[in-house]
């Protein structure tokens, strides 16, 4: 049996819990956020949108199915820290190729287990997302210093992680079967499953670095532009916002997910804001205001588009409307332009982890690109 490494997690407001370390040891800082998904920790950890954050899992047993070579959503794990109530000692799954603890260690992610994750979640819910530090080999004798260190760590508001997460080399995911369209996906922290979902539908996806210019994109002669999910404050994503505006001017079909939704929103002149504690989970009810249907969706966002005064509104690119809302709290979950083929959702139709209720949105994107061609 491995020896127990005492560890402590400390929030910027002084709240602390003592537990046991796992994964990498050391010190980690990040914005503390909780995710309520009961499955999909490997996908969560490899989702670039969690860059700069410490993820608290509300499900009490984590690591049961280990990690495998198929479920990763990017080239590495991104959060700076990981908080669970209980880490599994064994791995039980026919696809597993390793343990979660080893994988965290390899990725340098500091984990802490054996803490009351529900109490922590309630604290974050009531006080709002805030900075956290995890300190291994400490039980908090010097708590004051630890709190100070957490307060010295960077804030999420105004933070940009795009440079960190975006691909350094552009690459192409070929269309499966007959190619029906080409799209350029601006990688702001894209997940593996997203181009997969498009490829399955006959879309050839050119995943490009976030700093790619509109001219460079045009050279690829795409039928549409896709804006991925990603970490950070959308207000900082000036480059991407500019590209969207140019694409809209060019009447280029456009589809955005998550961060991409916020960017489209800002490109249209809407504001974004940091939410109290965000939406992170795979059980969120989103209503499609066009059809009235409810989708159960995967979410991972701490920022959102501020709702305009009416569902329909004018923009520099014509009429637009709020297309989707979250039924839990009426947060804007989707935007569409009425006069051209641009739309976006705040949630994750590619799922991974999460339900597949919304994968029709990729069909819709294909349709819109088809009408462009």
């Amino acid at each position, binding site marked *: 049996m491995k020896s127990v490494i005492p560890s402590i997690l400390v929030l910027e407001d002084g709240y602390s*819990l003592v537990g046991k370390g796992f994964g990498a040891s050391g010190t980690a800082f990040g914005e503390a956020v*909780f995710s*309520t*998904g*009961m*499955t*999909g920790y*490997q*996908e969560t950890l490899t989702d670039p949108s969690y860059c700069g954050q410490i993820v608290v899992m*509300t*499900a*009490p*047993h984590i690591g*049961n*199915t280990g990690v*495998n070579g*198929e*479920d990763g959503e990017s080239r590495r794990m991104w959060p700076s820290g990981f908080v669970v*109530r*209980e880490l*599994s*000692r*064994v791995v*039980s*799954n*026919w*696809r597993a190729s390793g343990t979660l603890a080893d994988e965290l260690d390899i990725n340098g992610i500091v984990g802490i287990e054996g*803490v*009351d*994750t*529900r*109490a922590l*979640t*309630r604290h974050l*819910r009531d006080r709002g997302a805030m900075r956290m530090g995890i300190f291994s080999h400490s039980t908090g004798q010097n708590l004051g210093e630890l709190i100070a260190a957490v307060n010295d760590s960077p804030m999420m508001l105004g933070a940009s992680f795009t440079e960190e997460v975006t691909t350094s080399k552009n690459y192409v995911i070929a269309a499966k079967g007959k190619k029906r369209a080409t799209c350029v996906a601006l990688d702001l922290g894209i997940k593996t499953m997203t181009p997969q979902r498009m490829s399955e539908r006959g879309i050839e996806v050119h995943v490009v670095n976030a700093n790619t210019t509109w001219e460079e994109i045009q050279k690829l002669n795409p039928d549409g532009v896709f804006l991925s999910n990603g970490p950070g404050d959308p207000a900082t994503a000036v480059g991407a916002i500019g590209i969207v505006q140019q694409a809209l001017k060019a009447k280029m079909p456009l589809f955005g997910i998550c961060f991409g939704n916020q960017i489209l929103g800002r490109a249209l002149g809407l504001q974004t804001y940091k939410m109290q504690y965000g939406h992170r*989970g*795979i*059980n*969120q*009810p989103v*209503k499609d205001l066009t059809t*009235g*249907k*409810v989708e*159960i969706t995967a979410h991972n966002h701490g920022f959102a588009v501020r709702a305009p005064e009416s569902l329909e509104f004018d923009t520099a690119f014509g009429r637009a409307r709020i297309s989707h809302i979250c*039924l*839990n*709290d009426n947060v804007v979950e989707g935007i569409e332009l009425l006069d051209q083929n641009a739309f976006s959702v705040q949630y994750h139709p590619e*799922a*991974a*982890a*999460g*339900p*597949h209720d919304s994968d029709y949105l990729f069909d819709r994107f294909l349709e819109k690109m088809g009408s462009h061609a």
Partner: protein
Amino acid sequence: MPKRDDIKSVMVIGSGPIVIGQACEFDYSGTQACRVLREEGIRVILVNSNPATIMTDPEFADATYIEPITTQYLELVIAKERPDALLPTLGGQTALNAAIALDKAGILKKYNVELIGADIDAIERGENREKFRKIVQEIGAESARSHICHSMQDTLAGVTELGYPVVVRPSFTMGGAGSGIAYNEEDLVRIAGLGLEASPTSEVLLEESIIGWKEYELELMRDKNDNVVVVCSIENVDPMGVHTGDSITVAPALTLTDREFQKLRDVGIEIIRAVGVETGGCNIQFAINPDDGRLIVIEMNPRVSRSSALASKATGFPIAKIAARLAIGYSLDEIQNDITAETPASFEPTLDYIVVKVPRFAFEKFPGADTTLTTTMKSVGEAMAIGRNFPEALQKALRSTEQKSAIFGWDKPRDAGEIPHLIEDMKRPHDGRLSLAQRALWLGATNAQIHEATNIDPWFLDQIERINEMADRIHESHEVTAPLLFEAKSLGFSDVQIADLRGAGEAEIREIRKQLGVFPVFKTVDTCAAEFAARTPYHYSSYDSETEVVPSERRKIIILGSGPNRIGQGIEFDYSCVHAAMTLSEAGYETIMINCNPETVSTDYDTSDRLYFEPLTFEDVMAVIDAEGAAGELVGVIVQLGGQTPLGLAQSLADAGVPIIGTQPAAIHLAEDREMFSQVLAEAKVPAPAHGTARSFEQAREIANRIGYPVLVRPSYVLGGRGMEIVYEEERLKEYLEAATQINPEHPVLVDRFLDDAVEIDVDALFDGTDLYLAGVMEHIEEAGIHSGDSACALPPITLGREEIDRIRKSTHAIAAGVGVRGLINIQFALASDVLYILEANPRASRTVPFVSKATGVPIAKAAARIMAGESIASLRAIGLLPRSGDGGQLPQGSPVSVKEAVLPFGRFHGVDTVLGPEMKSTGEVMGIDATFGVAFAKSQVAAFSGGLPTRGTAFVSLANRDKRAAIFPIKRLSDLGFDIVATAGTADILQRNGIPARVIRKQFEGTGAEGEPTSVDAINNGEIDLIINTPYGVGPRKDGYEIRTAAVLRGVPCITTVQGLAAAVQGIDSLLHDQAAVKSIQEHARDVHWDGV
């Protein structure tokens, strides 16, 4: 568009009597549905034959029919009430089958009744295996390879391709009745034969064996707009091969990655759409090959199921309530989540805790029953527990079953030599398998070895290893430190387990724990893993940092529930607990329920002001009391409504300084202690049968010789007649005592003179210290000696005169006063040779409380709770909770006659004798109510047994000598009514002499005759007999009629085993032949009964 406005009235069908596979979860779902529909302003017409349900309380429906759930009676109700719609999906398979039958008979069409919540085609697609397989195939999923068979020939042909072992499943049966696993041709012929018989469509499915695969269930809901949500995933710890009702199950699923889980979800959603469950819930079962992930769809239930009740309690998402709303036109997003009160129901609950359900078996009641767990459900109840990890939830659930053998222990010697035996033993799935696995792991067997033997997932086995390792640390530690205790507690160890490991007492560990400040916290079931604030105080304990109990300054009353259903303690006790919660809330108290049975209404978060889902042990109950004691005044704890479970805690709670309200523990003890109770009887001048208390065989022999055989022997402090037996001779007495000491070594054995040929009378009464309210006097239809829970009874008593009832009232008053009852008392009297003897007095709610309440229209459990809280009978009469004058012993003119009949589970336990005795064996009950006894009895029989009493055909008669005289007259009447009588030689002789044309039939031991003349058993098996009258001989194990009664059970032929029962049956048959069948709601009955002589 919300609610449909074209539906003004809805008929709801309940699930009838509690049977294995269909228990009080359908009272929970039906009650929720009725509540919702009435809230929506819809007229609710309810039909359910089970009086022990909350749903059949008059305030839950506008018209409540306690009538048989058969096409005939349902049509009468429909013709009379003309409902706009019928909601059949909340009353289990019974209601669904009843709806199909109504549709097939053209009745729904004739009366223009719309089926809501499901349509016949969807039910067909979900339940007809061939159609369902096709659907699974069409959506691109896989079913197990299989063959549909309609005959034995088909069956034998089908197996050649699939090979053994092969699974046999009959269509349209509930709880997997009639299904099993065949390992060879002999098994196959037997199981398929029964299955073809059990299936209403004579159809069985043969299926490739996927025994040992991982097993999952999803609970889904769909609304009219095609919104679908997965409410809950459930993983079976016991892999494929064990019925899910008999499996230890856990929610959420714990050993699937998201990809695999989403595949289940996708397939589940495709299925609910393709089957066409338009509005409502369904349950889908899956198997996954642990080696490669191959996914197979097992089956679906297009209705609310047992698992839905579990899922509702496990998640806080009330499936039945929402199903009812969906059925009348709402969509999921139009319905609010009760718990958060701000988010909608169109979401998927997420859990930040682990729920474990453990089945409770009753094999000890059925010696000779096969304890192997198969695809036919055998458990009679279940306990659920919630914890912040699997070990905690598991250990809490195991102790919630109240079966010592189920709780992990480490006291036996540590002999690794046992491992091979244990492993061999655990290869056969049976009720004790998990304990064997735990023990083998503790002895040093590896996870892999146990996995190989049981196919239990290594993850679960590792959790058990964690528990074992902790046990060793507790045992080996020098001292009990706070961190050690905390860690042990967070793995679910009880004080008792820790004490056993430390060689200490429970009190000692409790004291150390208090000193070290190691206490549980209480968390909340909130559907959303704390994402939103919860408004509903639905709590569970855990060892963690933060507690969520909001202090309340109100005056509180804690009600202890009755734990898992078992034979002798079931829904009837939950009924009383729920009533207490309702009336005390109305009276202004904050009511707090503690219970661990997920099937019940009491564990609905709507029932009490606060709900704690906790085991009913001293430690767990005290933790709640301590938590609630932090603020406000605890007026007291109610222990007398939940049966033996809370009663057993009364003394220790009182010793801990907890106020018990109602009858005090000392009084409870007084009634249980034979010697002390004798004094009460002497003072009350009520004779008891001669008796004595024995602590050894010698003492018992001496007593028996003194008072004369036959004697009734039993251990003290039992419920449901556990271990009770009528002993006719010394040799058997000796055997009994040798066995009895193992039942309960701390308590002596009671030896009573057994009153042959007595009339047994059951009385429920209320006593407030001054006044007595005689709530009901029930006359047993079977003679004394058959457990009151198994005996049919009538209220008002059919043969007792006013003078006898007055004597009963006086005696009851004297005993209640002598014992010191505050609240309910149940007394069993026997009337023999005009002497009224007392057999037993129990100062608590009895099994008959709901029946008495329904039969007399008086809510006596509510009255009892109010008396316990300090009100008087006079004041309850004044406010109208009790009648202003009169009582259940002198019912007003126009009162109907109600008959209660017991429902027995013998069909589930092949090879078990079906004869009744002093040990209770029934799982449930029904009630027949009508103006006269004959009709009420006939209704009770139709409700209890498929087909009910026959009105023509052949009756087979075989009588014990002592019964022959008394049986002549009723058999003559039977013959006059047109029945052919066949009888064994001796009986036929006497019948013929009395002018009854009786044919002689061969006895079983004589074998088939030279000319192929059948024996009685042959005749039953050939379907030639419509009614069996077989009174067993009084001596010994009474094996003589064994084959006859077994054949009767297997063929579903009514079998009467007492002369009194025969007389009642003949009256019933008479009324069926001569009276027009009619139905009347209990509200109408109440209107026609004028209590105040108005």
